């Protein structure tokens, strides 16, 4: 059996793997969006730009300062998280009492600023980032050849996503976070520093985007536009999954990546829009998204 519906199994599995890799990025980014939206009520349009900054930190680290991939994987989220603290403290905190639309508009402006600065500094052409030495090569799984780096990306992002899910759903800190989204005044009255928690949540979400950026750097070209191209698909993922559920955003991200990969095999012309078509269909059937709660 070397063909399924006239498609060679190798090609099919290859595309499915690519889909899974993309799906991992969708999952990590939509997870960050969901966490930030949950506690801050802000749709973080700058999320794609923060992801892009993460990838550039990895690239710059290697090119200019000779820092390897593993250092970047720690450094990027720290730097971008610090940037997140500044953004939240100086700008976002003024918007919590307003219509959430203002948060969207402000972060849209931030995305433009970040993108413009990187475009001015590095141009629009893509930079390639080498796969780290330890992860070069490929493993023969018997039914397919798995490039080690791609396997690592899927593994690492799943591990990160599940950790975040565990922290939010199963730990005391997560309980505070969830309570904070329900009733900030009450949680504050219990002696918990809610503003600090909010700041750290935004920083954490931003850091998550940066990690995704570093993971993506060796797989795709690093360009100033890489974030804005991705963020809109991630928004569609969020709409399909429904903003309410952490696990929902992870699952939806992965599944949509896979569906996109499959479409690339069977009907390549539609692969760019399949996510949006699914979004339209899901909204007709379930306006609150697959995992969302109807209000």
């Amino acid at each position: 059996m070397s063909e399924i519906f006239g498609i060679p199994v190798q090609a099919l599995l290859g595309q499915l793997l690519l889909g899974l890799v993309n799906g991992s990025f969708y999952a990590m980014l939509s997870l960050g969006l969901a966490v930030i939206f949950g506690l801050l009520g802000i749709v973080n349009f700058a999320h794609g730009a923060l992801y892009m900054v993460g990838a550039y930190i990895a690239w710059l680290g290697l090119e200019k300062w000779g820092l390897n991939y593993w250092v970047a994987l720690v450094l990027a989220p720290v730097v971008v998280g610090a940037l997140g603290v500044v953004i939240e403290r100086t700008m976002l905190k003024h918007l919590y009492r307003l219509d959430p639309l203002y948060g969207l508009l402000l972060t849209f402006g931030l995305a433009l600023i970040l993108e413009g600065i990187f475009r001015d500094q590095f141009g629009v052409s893509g930079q390639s980032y080498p796969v780290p030495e330890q992860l070069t090569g490929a493993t023969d799984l018997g039914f397919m050849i798995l490039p080690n780096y791609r396997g690592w990306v899927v593994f690492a992002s799943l591990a990160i996503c599940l950790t975040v899910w565990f922290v939010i759903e199963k730990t005391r800190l997560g309980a505070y976070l969830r309570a904070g989204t329900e009733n900030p005044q009450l949680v504050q009255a219990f002696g918990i520093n809610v503003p600090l928690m909010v700041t750290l949540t935004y920083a954490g979400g931003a850091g998550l985007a940066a990690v995704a950026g570093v993971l993506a750097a060796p797989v795709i070209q690093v360009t100033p536009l890489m974030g804005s191209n991705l963020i809109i698909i991630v928004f569609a993922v969020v709409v399909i999954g429904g903003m309410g559920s952490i696990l929902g955003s992870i699952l939806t991200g992965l599944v949509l990546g896979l569906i996109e990969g499959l479409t690339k095999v069977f009907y390549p012309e539609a692969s760019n829009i399949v996510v949006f078509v699914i979004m339209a269909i899901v909204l007709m059937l379930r306006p609150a998204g697959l995992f969302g709660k109807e209000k």
Partner: protein
Amino acid sequence: MNAQTSQRVAWLVVLALLVVAPFAGIYPVFMMKALCFAIFACAFNLLLGYTGLLSFGHAAFLGSAAYATGWLVRSAGWSPELGILAGTSVAALLGLVVGLVAIRRQGIYFAMITLAMAQMVYFICLQAPFTGGEDGLQGVPRGKLFGVLPLHNDVVMYFFVLAVFVAVFLFVVRIVHSPYGQVLKAIRENEPRAVSLGYDVDRYKLLAFVLSTTLAGLAGSLKTLALGFATLSDVHWSLSGEVVLMTLLGGMGTFAGPVIGAFTIVGLQNFLADRVGSWVTVIIGVTFVVCVLAFRRGIVGELLEWQKRRNRHHRA
């Protein structure tokens, strides 16, 4: 002079300035572009400013009309008036389809859904066989309006665009002041109450959405004729962002705001493009942030507020 008369006088002065502009040495093509985006922003404001719906995908409607008009006029040899009519209808139909899906959710979800649907339109324009892909449609002829008016003359074309702009502007004013417009404002202020009063809110919102996309399409069709091309930047989401900025900067929910916003942004882009390169994006981004943080009422909104405060002061 009461407030209403002074406002009318102000509008007549603006109109007079617009009429003499091409003779005062202002580049007519720039003025046409700015007027087209002013129509676009007025259409957008009808939705955001008066109905409270933030569409983040309005470029899709301007862009699809721009492509439809461009292709029909250039490749199928249609006359300009039929081209505009067809382009505007395409935007209206597309608006109906997107509206039917998007109207089911509110606020932030509505914004994200319109954005995603617009992205679908973007990829279709990128891949469809007749749109010219990355190059877009170039060299669209202006032709003769109704077989008589030679639009290839910049001044004639300018007055045609100006006439359409004035018509759209008056139309928007009329809509907002009509009983229908009052219902829209009621929905914006308190949707549950509008529902409880027995209004079929979804139908009102859908009609507002389609009206807005139709006018956005008209702006796109005119723009294609005036500038002679339709490209991917007409359907790109950054244009959807720009029209939000035009409305916000000028003052949403005011009549003059979007027009002033559109002229400011188009002017800024024209003026800065050769001078600062990529920094245009940064400057636009900073304007966005400053508007949201410091003056959410926009230029016109702040002026009206200042006037109101002054009047109160005088009476006291």
